[in-house]
């Protein structure tokens, strides 16, 4: 045998075992080579792998191991020394790398393990978060449901709709089998089934309110689970075969308006509650979840608020309806009152005329009769008739005056008059009667009292007469003194007129009149009643005095109208009495000292005025009057055109006519209408002719109507030459007639 540099295998070649070893080695090598390839492939694919260096090491280790095993394949047979060297090299390298790897792995494997734990931890965390998210989501959904429910509930102010909607929405949101609302009855002792979800018309089941389960629910403001067998829950026949679903009840506070405070939610024990019962579907395994209970509680509160709003609205609607009814009633009452007043005024207006006319006829004719030849008996009879009719006339006048006074429709007729003369006249009137009764009457007028004053002469005299007349009437003996002077603030020391103040002014003065008598006097307690209508003190001497009891009442009203005050002082019965009144009168200018109308003053100045060529239009339907008026005006120099009808007047009237005289009693269109039309025709004042009415009656109504129609003056027919002259000069100078009647 030649010596080859071969190495003998360690063990003798055993054919079968060798074969197996050979094959295993081969496969190991293949695997060892493929593993790194796989690793590289997959690591290249994955983006996260922190330990590449380890991989390289591991790869090297495996490759070398593989190489080792691969080379081992050759050692099964005779192999050259190179192969052995390579083998040894490979083995050495493998040993080095594997040791290095082993050392490296000591560091790495704990890390890898901790990664695993962290992964587990994170997975747990993720699961937990998932759970929480689920919870939040359900809560959010619950919130959404609540909002939607609230919106539905609060979108209406009708109590019935609120409750019905609540039940429907709750039923839908929570998928309930049944939902019911029990309201307390009026007596408060029972709960009555008011609304249900499924049943259309709940029959009036009632349940006493004092059940323990109900008390339990009312005590807490949470939703409480109750047994499905309790009376409030047993409202439907059992539908399912098995267990009825869980039932929950919650209280709904019913707020009264009176205890609805904005800032503090009342926690009174005497509150009324309604009961809301919710049933889950039977035969389902559903349980009441916390969030569902919360939902129910919130809804119950919202319902309470919505109901209170509905109650407030109902209340205000009711109040408004009540007010409207009251308004209607008041309106009706007002209209009735107005009708009554109008009826009374009409009555008065008619009666005024109707009653006065026959009265005047009676009085006038009786006085006329007295002037004829009569026997003494006849004379006596006629005198009695006259006296009675005078009384009656006075009474009628008084009543009518008083009614007008109360109406406020009486106006004082102001005029300039002689004040001193008024007193003297009253004195003269009363003296004969007083002397018959043997009473002494004295009159004292203060020297500083103005002689002339502006006021209502007739009514002042009426007041004075009444007061003095009373003094005479109620005195059987003694004296009566009438004093008149200028009132100053000091003279008002009387406490009976505390609210009467003298207002000093330049144009007015206060007249103070005092009538003192020594007669029967008045009980101080009766003094307030003196001035009331129709009341007469029933003291001894007064029953025969007659009179209606209106006198003082009327005086009081006249005095008040004149801006004054009237009162009576008396010490008591039998001690006489003093009547005092103060009235406000206007002061006259110093220039006017006479009582004559202004017309004559004017006539003195303008008697020589020339009216030549003055164009005048006369409207008069009576031929004779027309001719007379025309002649009058032509005599004064005017250029007169006459018309006999209103139409003609309106046709003919033009800017050239300076004055239009029109008769008040024209047939057809009234003269007022004509005046208005003339105003319309000539809008500018200097173009318009002056309009004067000619009338045969002098009452205030005609004057008022004329003035209202826009006329510039009123003249009484028949017109004398002088009067016409004054009228024309007045018109031309002032553009309006100051005083013509």
């Amino acid at each position: 045998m030649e010596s080859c540099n071969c190495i003998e295998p360690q063990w003798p070649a055993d054919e079968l075992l060798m074969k197996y070893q050979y094959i295993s080695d081969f496969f190991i090598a293949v695997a060892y080579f493929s593993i790194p390839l796989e690793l590289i492939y997959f690591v290249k694919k994955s983006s996260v792998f922190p330990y590449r260096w380890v991989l390289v090491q591991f790869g090297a280790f495996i490759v070398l191991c593989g190489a080792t095993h691969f080379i081992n394949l050759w050692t099964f047979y005779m192999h050259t020394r190179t192969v052995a060297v390579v083998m040894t090299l490979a083995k050495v390298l493998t040993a080095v790398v594997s040791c290095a790897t082993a050392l490296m792995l000591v560091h790495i494997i704990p890390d890898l393990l901790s990664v695993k734990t962290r992964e587990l931890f994170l997975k747990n965390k993720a699961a937990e978060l998932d759970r929480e998210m689920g919870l939040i989501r359900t809560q959010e959904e619950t919130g959404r449901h609540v909002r939607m429910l609230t919106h539905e509930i609060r979108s209406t102010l009708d109590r019935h709709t609120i409750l019905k909607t609540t039940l429907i929405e709750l039923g839908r949101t929570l998928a309930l089998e049944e939902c019911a609302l029990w309201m307390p009855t009026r007596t408060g002792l029972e709960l009555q089934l008011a609304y249900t979800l499924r049943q259309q018309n709940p029959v009036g089941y009632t349940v006493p309110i004092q059940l323990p389960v109900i008390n339990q629910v009312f005590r807490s403001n949470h939703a409480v689970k109750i047994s499905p067998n309790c009376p409030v829950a047993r409202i439907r026949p059992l539908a399912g075969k098995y267990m009825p679903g869980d039932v929950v009840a919650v209280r709904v506070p019913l707020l009264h308006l009176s205890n609805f405070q904005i800032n503090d939610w009342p926690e009174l024990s005497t509150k009324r509650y309604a009961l809301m019962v919710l049933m889950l579907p039977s035969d389902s395994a559903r349980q009441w979840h916390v969030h569902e209970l919360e939902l129910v509680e919130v809804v119950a509160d919202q319902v309470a608020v919505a109901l209170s709003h509905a109650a407030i609205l109902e209340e205000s609607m009711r109040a408004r309806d009540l007010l409207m009814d009251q308004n209607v009633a008041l309106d009706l009452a007002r209209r009735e009152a107005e009708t009554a007043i109008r009826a009374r005024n009409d009555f008065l207006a008619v009666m005024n005329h109707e009653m006065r006319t026959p009265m005047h006829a009676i009085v006038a004719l009786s006085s006329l009769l007295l002037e004829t030849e009569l026997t003494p008996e006849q004379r006596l009879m006629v005198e009695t008739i006259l006296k009675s009719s005078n009384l009656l006339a006075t009474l009628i006048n008084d009543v009518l005056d008083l009614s007008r006074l109360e109406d406020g429709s009486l106006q004082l007729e102001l005029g300039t008059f002689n004040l001193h003369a008024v007193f003297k006249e009253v004195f003269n009137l009363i003296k004969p009667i007083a002397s018959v009764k043997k009473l002494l009457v004295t009159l004292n007028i203060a020297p500083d009292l103005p002689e002339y004053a502006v006021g209502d002469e007739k009514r002042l005299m009426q007041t004075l007469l009444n007061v003095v007349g009373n003094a005479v009437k109620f005195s059987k003996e003694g004296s009566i003194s009438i004093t008149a002077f200028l009132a100053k603030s000091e003279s008002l020391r009387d406490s009976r007129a505390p609210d009467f103040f003298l207002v000093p002014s330049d144009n007015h003065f206060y007249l103070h009149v005092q009538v003192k008598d020594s007669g029967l006097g008045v009980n101080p307690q009766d003094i307030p009643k003196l001035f009331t209508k129709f009341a007469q003190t029933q003291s001894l001497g007064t029953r025969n005095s007659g009179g209606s009891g209106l006198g003082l009442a009327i005086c009081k009203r006249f005095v008040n109208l004149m801006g004054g005050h009237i009162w009576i002082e008396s010490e008591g019965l039998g001690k006489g009495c003093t009547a005092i009144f103060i009235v406000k009168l206007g002061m006259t200018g110093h220039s006017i000292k006479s009582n004559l109308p202004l017309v004559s003053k004017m006539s003195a100045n303008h008697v020589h005025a020339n009216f030549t060529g003055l164009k005048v239009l006369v409207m008069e339907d009576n031929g004779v009057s027309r001719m007379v008026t025309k002649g009058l005006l032509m005599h004064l120099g005017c250029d007169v055109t006459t018309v006999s009808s209103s139409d003609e007047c309106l046709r003919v009237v033009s800017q050239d006519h300076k004055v239009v005289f029109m008769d008040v009693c024209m047939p057809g269109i009234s003269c007022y209408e004509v005046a208005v039309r003339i105003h319309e025709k000539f809008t500018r004042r200097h173009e318009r002719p002056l309009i004067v009415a000619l009338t045969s009656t002098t009452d205030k109504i005609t004057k008022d109507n004329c003035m209202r129609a826009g006329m510039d003056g009123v003249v009484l027919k028949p017109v004398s030459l002088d009067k016409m002259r004054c009228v024309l000069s007045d018109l031309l100078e002032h553009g309006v007639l100051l005083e013509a009647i």
Partner: protein
Amino acid sequence: RQVSLIRQSLFDQGFLDEQFIQLEELGDDANPNFVEEVVSLYYRDSVRLIHNLEQALEKSPLDYNKLDEYMHQFKGSSSSIGAKKVKAECTQFKEFCMAEYREGCMRTFQQVKREYTTLKKKLEAYFQV
């Protein structure tokens, strides 16, 4: 002189009043016979009015408003010339008219006519002189 006597008697007896004097004053150079013209117009007017009144008074029932209207006219004319007595009777007639007193109206109307005719005769006599 006779004229003034007659004239004075007319005033004294109350047939005429101041209005007549006014009318007389209105006569001047332009219209010397103003008064006569007025009076003749008055006669013409009155005839018509009296005729209307008579017709109205024959109706039954009486239309007092119409009567009042006519009488108002007549009264107006009479007062324009100063016929005092006639005017007084007219006033009386109007009173009875307002009281709707038929008998009174009839009676007063007769008086009105009487006074009117008397006045007319007297005035004619006056103017002739």
